[in-house]
């Protein structure tokens, strides 16, 4: 339990501390140190949960079970690797004079603030606090998106702020409705938003209210996931913010949105199972619909991109759509696949954004048509980008292939016709990625293009992990996913 | 005594209408006197409008060369329509034989007839001002009338009737109930009343400013008894809206039975309420500036919106599911 509080307090105090440190070089190192200690605390907590099972803090404020513990560990882990990338990268940004020193303080403090809100959203047991934390994550990142103060980045940040603000307001309305539904069932008002309490009385909640609440919550948190048609902010925010931010936004924030939706689906499903209610699968079907739409639309948009970061952010939308779809199907196989996909997508996508950061550094632009011949200029970066893209496109033997294979099998089992749509979508996305990728990694070196100092360690670690997950899932992780699957679907997968 | 009064219901109704018509100039001068006092001017006597009317009735009528018979008929039609509209409104008592025809939509109809002929008469001579006034009047009323009807529907939803007497009776019986729909209906009706009776900030009855006048522009060519009738009809209109507002929204004191004491209390109550609303109107007119004609549609849209909100809030808040 102490590990839990440590996991939350470390980044919070890190945020305060980093806000005071004026020396950017020191702050970069300190940022890594805070992230590493957070990771240690998170792993410690994860091991505890692995041994002793789900943990509910006294008063019911925090709840850790198999579903969120691995996301906590993943968040802390990606936090560390991105911090390692961010230190030299932001040094380069500072050296180019794109940001002033004072803003580096903001950057580092908000980096930790963002991690705090993410971890809070994942660990809290209170649906209201979940909302507060997700909104807090927007607030923490919005100033980072406009860090460079270019007209484009200010526009992207404003869009991000306003669209997510509007979206997340719908989620709060949904939360109020959930609280309303429980007020009729639970007597003690203070625990009326506690997920564990709601889970215990799930079947007694009124299906009408819960279904309306779910629609509002799906729209609200769906904006955060980047589901089409609520996705407009996402490519802008990803492409205009500093690259480390793109990595954590894509790798972590979207996951948290999806995490919230799945948690709520777990409450809504028992309520909708009421015999008097005529569409028990409403939540799942809505998620499948939105997910599939996002998956296909984002795949098509991949073809039109001219900006490398925009392209990969559409790829994020595509994968989030796929996961939403899979959680919507809901069987043990689909859920297991979706959990695995969440992990491998986070690892791969943050690795890609790190590589993209180096690639744009080399080329001096984000325009795809001006990035050429990366392998010849700097083989590490070129191969990193090639392998990362291959992994995200679902090539074997990477983990994404495994999870996508599971999802396809699950779809085949329950919705055979949709397999066609999924396969088409995968093919479209694959084509969209590779038609742009090929000239970037191969091709001729433009004049004056020279290698830069690049730290490819985070990329290598992430891609190796993804490779490992593709070849064999370690038993403890499989056990975790299985426990989470049991929680979400009520059945074991393994 | 009570029996006698019941038998003479029709007579009473006639008396009420006569009182209405006779009292109308009094309300106008009451507002004017209050305004004068607020603006530190010497106030005219309470009898001044009667003197004016009497003088106009004595004077010779001067007609334009190209005036058609319509021009000559219009004052009588306008006055008659307005008097009939006034006759439908319960002034002292809700329980008169005229209650059967006292429908709010009929009231709007009478007012529309009056306005129609007023606008025709304004255009008849063919002067620029008359046509301008008529076109303004018609375009304003095309916005004011829907708002007025919306107010009526809002009231009708609460009282389950469009009959004025029933509405007043219903609200009187219900006692003090704070209804959101009535609040919005009242605000909407206030705005409509200001526009329809040509008061500031929509129109200024005291001036003949060529750029802004609406009502005065239409009756510019009238003289003598014609002008008297037109003026009187305008005063009646103010009275109609005043009585509507006080008797629907604040029905306290109105007579629900035909006894002499109840009628006396009714008369007293309506006098007090009307004089209060006169003071309010004088205050409002003194503190507000006349708005530009182009802004008047917005003003009336607001009235419509308020009335619509009244109807919506009745459905949402007041009806049980």
């Amino acid at each position, binding site marked *: 339990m102490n590990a839990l509080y440590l996991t939350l307090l470390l980044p919070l105090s890190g945020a305060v501390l980093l806000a005071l440190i004026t020396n950017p070089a020191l702050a970069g190192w300190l940022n890594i140190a805070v992230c590493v200690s957070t990771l240690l605390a998170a792993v410690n907590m994860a091991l505890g949960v692995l041994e002793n099972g789900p943990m509910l803090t006294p008063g019911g404020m925090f709840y850790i079970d198999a579903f969120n513990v691995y996301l906590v560990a993943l968040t802390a882990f990606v936090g560390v690797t991105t911090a390692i990338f961010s230190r030299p990268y932001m040094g380069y940004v500072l050296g180019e004079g794109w940001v002033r020193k004072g803003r580096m303080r903001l950057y580092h403090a908000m980096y930790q603030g963002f991690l705090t809100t993410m971890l809070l959203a994942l660990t809290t047991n209170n649906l209201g606090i979940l909302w507060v934390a997700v909104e807090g994550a927007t607030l923490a990142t919005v100033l980072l998106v406009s860090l460079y103060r*270019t007209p484009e980045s200010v526009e992207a*940040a*404003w869009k991000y702020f306003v669209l997510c603000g509007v979206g997340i307001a719908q989620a709060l309305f949904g939360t109020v409705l959930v609280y*309303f539904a429980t007020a009729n069932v639970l007597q003690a008002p203070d625990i009326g938003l506690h997920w564990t309490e709601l889970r215990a009385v799930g079947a007694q909640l009124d299906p009408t209210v819960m279904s309306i609440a779910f629609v509002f919550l799906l729209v609200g948190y769906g904006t955060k996931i980047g589901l089409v048609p609520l996705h407009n902010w996402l490519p802008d925010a990803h492409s205009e913010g500093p690259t480390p931010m793109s990595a954590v936004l894509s790798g972590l924030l979207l996951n948290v949105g999806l995490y919230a939706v799945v948690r709520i689906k777990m409450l809504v499903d028992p309520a909708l199972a009421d015999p008097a209610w005529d569409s028990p699968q409403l939540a799942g079907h809505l998620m499948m619909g939105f997910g599939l739409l996002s998956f296909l639309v984002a795949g098509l*948009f991949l073809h039109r991109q001219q900006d490398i970061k925009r392209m990969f952010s559409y790829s994020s939308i595509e994968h989030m759509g796929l996961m939403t779809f899979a959680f919507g199907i809901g069987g043990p196989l689909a859920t297991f696949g979706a959990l695995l996909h969440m992990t491998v997508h986070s690892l791969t996508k943050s690795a890609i954004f790190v590589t993209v950061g180096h690639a744009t550094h080399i080329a001096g632009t984000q325009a795809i048509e001006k990035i050429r011949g990366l392998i010849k200029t700097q083989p590490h970066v070129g191969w990193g980008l090639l392998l990362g893209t291959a992994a995200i496109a679902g090539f074997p033997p990477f983990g994404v292939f495994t999870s996508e294979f599971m999802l396809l099998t699950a779809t085949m089992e329950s919705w055979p016709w949709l397999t066609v749509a999924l396969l088409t979508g995968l093919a479209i996305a694959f084509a969209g990625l590779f038609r742009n990728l090929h000239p970037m990694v191969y091709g001729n070196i433009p004049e004056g293009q020279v290698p830069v100092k690049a730290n490819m360690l985070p990329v290598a670690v992430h891609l190796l992990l993804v490779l490992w997950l593709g070849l064999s899932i370690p038993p403890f992780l499989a056990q975790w996913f299985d426990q989470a699957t049991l929680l979400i679907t009520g059945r074991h997968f393994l | 005594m009570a029996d006698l009064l019941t038998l003479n219901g029709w007579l009473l109704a006639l008396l009420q209408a006569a009182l209405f018509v006779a009292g109308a100039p009094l309300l106008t001068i009451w507002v004017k006197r209050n305004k004068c006092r607020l603006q530190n001017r010497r106030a005219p006597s309470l009898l001044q409008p009667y003197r004016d009317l009497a003088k106009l009735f004595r004077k010779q009528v001067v007609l334009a060369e190209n005036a058609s018979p319509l021009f000559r008929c219009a004052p009588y039609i306008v006055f008659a329509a307005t008097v009939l509209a006034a006759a439908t409104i319960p002034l002292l008592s809700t329980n008169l034989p005229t209650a059967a025809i006292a429908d709010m939509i009929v009231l709007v109809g009478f007012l529309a007839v009056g306005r129609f002929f007023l606008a025709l008469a304004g255009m008849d001579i063919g002067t620029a001002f008359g046509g301008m006034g008529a076109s303004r009047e018609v375009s304003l009323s095309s916005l004011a009338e829907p708002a007025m009807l919306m107010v009526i529907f809002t009231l009708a939803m609460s009282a389950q009737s469009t009959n004025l007497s029933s509405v007043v009776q219903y609200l009187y019986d219900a006692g003090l109930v704070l209804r959101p729909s009535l609040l919005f209906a009242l605000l909407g009706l206030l705005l409509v009343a200001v526009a329809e009776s040509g008061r500031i900030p929509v129109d200024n009855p005291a001036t003949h400013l060529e750029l802004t006048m609406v009502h005065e522009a239409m009756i510019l060519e009238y003289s003598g008894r014609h002008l008297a009738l037109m003026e009187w009809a305008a005063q009646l209109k103010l009275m109609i809206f005043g009585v509507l507002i006080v008797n629907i929204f604040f029905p306290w004191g109105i007579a629900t039975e035909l006894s002499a004491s109840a009628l006396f209390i009714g008369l007293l109550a309506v006098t007090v309420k009307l004089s209060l609303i006169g003071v309010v109107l004088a205050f409002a007119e003194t503190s507000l500036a006349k708005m530009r004609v182009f802004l008047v549609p917005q003003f009336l849209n607001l009235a419509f919106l308020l009335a619509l909100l009244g109807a919506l809030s009745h459905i949402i808040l007041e009806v049980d599911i």
Partner: protein
Amino acid sequence: MTIAQYSLSEQAVLILAALVLFTSFALLAQQRMLASIHVFAWQGVLVAASTAMIAGVYDKHHLYFSALLTMGLKAMLMPWMLRRLVERLGIAHQVETVVRPALVLLGAAALVVFSYYVALPIEKLSSLSTRNTIAISMAVVLIGMLMMVARRQAVSQVVGFMSMENGLFFAAVVSTHGMPMVVELGIAFDVLVAAVLFGVFFFQIRDSIESLDVDRLNRLSENSEITGVRE
């Protein structure tokens, strides 16, 4: 049970709720910057007043605190901040043209009807006298959203955003007599931070496009030329 059977203070709550809805319409129609900030402040006052009223009627003491919080935050602090900002930005007397105002207002009325139908099954479950106001609060949220869509001025969009927050708070108060205190404090904190950030953004936007007309923020779109020339 009709309205006549409620106590006078319950009726007063309904009146206040209706007035909150009216202020939402007024916000939507108001084109003057300062005036709309004032209307927003009045909305906060009305929401706070109805919260205090409900606290009195149902004897819920923690709602007095929520009412106080709303009064301080939504009716005083934020309007004051917004007012100071627009004065410093020199746009206090700016008049914003709303495209097709009548259409927007009709749209808002349609949203009210929509909220009524959505809230109908929810209201059936409640026995509180305030249950009918759930539709009103939902309408306030949706009208706030409409305002953010219909307006082109960054400040108006923020006012719309804040009035959405008012609607959400109002929803919590009328449907369940307030959220748990810790959640309410968290939300208030978020809203406060958001307000400060909005202030920062006004200056950033003005510096980048020399206006606060959000329509001119149009560099990023699918068809635009390459944007991120920076890195």
